[in-house]
């Protein structure tokens, strides 16, 4: 599928909405955490009770205890997402080379890609610097990459991550490139429009909830708002998904709420 961005009169599905109420968002996040933790707790209580009932069968008890650990790992991942999210408020921003964080991300995710998924990097614009908290940027890239890999889990495929320098829609042809475009293009199962519109909703999952926290893309949305950026999603069922993260370069202000890029601008 094509990763190009096109001129549209409105923001495409999945675009981040920067006109939001932080109190509403806090309630939504709290509801999402409660929902996910209650689900995890049900699994932990349940497998504990089943293990107690199976006390005479060591193999069965071991199976249940491993599943309890699996559920606890998910809870750990959930709190990890929240801690990374809170770092944006707790730590000062600094000038960060996007390529360095992306290299860390690829090193981190590659071992879990398995034999049937390849991860390739295409740094078309090296040395781009943005104002961010490094841990937040890392979490942002990891969450998008993990989602892409989950979409290719059954059939395998390729995740291509690219970095380009672009200018937002307000920039004339001669204006400086003011935005980093970090694009994650997978060849996975893709999503229909209805699913794409829901992916920033807490505890919504585009696939089977196995190992995920249900907060990944909501965290992506929150971090992108914090960075003054925008997310563009282009997806087609059966073909794949391209997630484009538009992040203002250091020294430039936040992107317009409905900024977009035209192919000719690139």
């Amino acid at each position: 599928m094509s990763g190009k961005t096109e001129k549209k009169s409105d923001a495409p599905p999945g675009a981040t909405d920067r006109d939001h109420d932080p109190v509403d968002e806090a309630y939504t996040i709290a509801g999402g955490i409660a929902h996910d933790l209650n689900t995890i707790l049900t699994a932990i209580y349940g497998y504990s009770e089943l293990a107690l009932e199976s006390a005479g069968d060591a193999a069965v008890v071991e199976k249940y205890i491993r599943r309890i650990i699996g559920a606890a790992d998910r809870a750990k991942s959930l709190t990890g997402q929240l801690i990374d999210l809170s770092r944006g408020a707790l730590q000062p921003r600094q000038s960060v080379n996007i390529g360095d964080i992306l290299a860390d991300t690829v090193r981190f995710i590659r071992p879990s890609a398995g034999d049937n998924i390849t991860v390739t990097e295409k740094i078309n614009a090296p040395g781009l610097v943005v104002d961010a908290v490094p841990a937040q940027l890392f979490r942002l890239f990891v969450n998008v990459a993990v989602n892409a890999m989950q979409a290719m889990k059954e059939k395998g495929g390729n995740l291509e991550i690219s970095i380009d320098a672009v200018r937002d829609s307000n920039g004339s042809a001669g204006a400086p490139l003011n935005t980093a475009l970090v694009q994650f293009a997978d060849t996975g199962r893709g999503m229909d429009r209805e699913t794409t519109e829901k992916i920033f909703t807490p505890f919504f999952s585009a696939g089977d909830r196995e190992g995920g926290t249900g907060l990944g893309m909501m965290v992506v949305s929150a971090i992108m708002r914090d960075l003054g950026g925008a997310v563009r999603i282009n997806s087609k069922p059966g073909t794949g998904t391209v997630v484009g993260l538009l992040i203002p370069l250091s020294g430039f202000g936040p992107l317009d709420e409905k900024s977009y890029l035209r192919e000719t601008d690139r």
Partner: protein
Amino acid sequence: MAGVLIVEDDANLREMLRDALEKRKFTVITAANGREAIARFRPSVIDLVVTDLLMPEEDGLMVIMKIRELKPSVKMIAISGGGKAGPGSYLLMASTLGADHVFSKPFLPSELVQKVREILA
């Protein structure tokens, strides 16, 4: 033995509920979302549906409505961890739609099994 359809998008929890019910000799079919549940529902096999409410594809409220159309006598238990619409409110909607019982997560599998037996008695 009675047949139960479990509809839950969390894989770990879905398998736990399957184990708990199969251990008590129920015939169990599972589904990861509402659309899958409706596709896998077999009126001749399933006597009771245990469905989560917040799920991708068709949600649990749609499961209750659509499966009731396929088999009006089927029994329904709704389960939910709360969330966007506030604690309990989705469960209230499930009750309004005719769920025979609702459980707020977390709950113990023994509580669910006991309720399944009561409802099917």
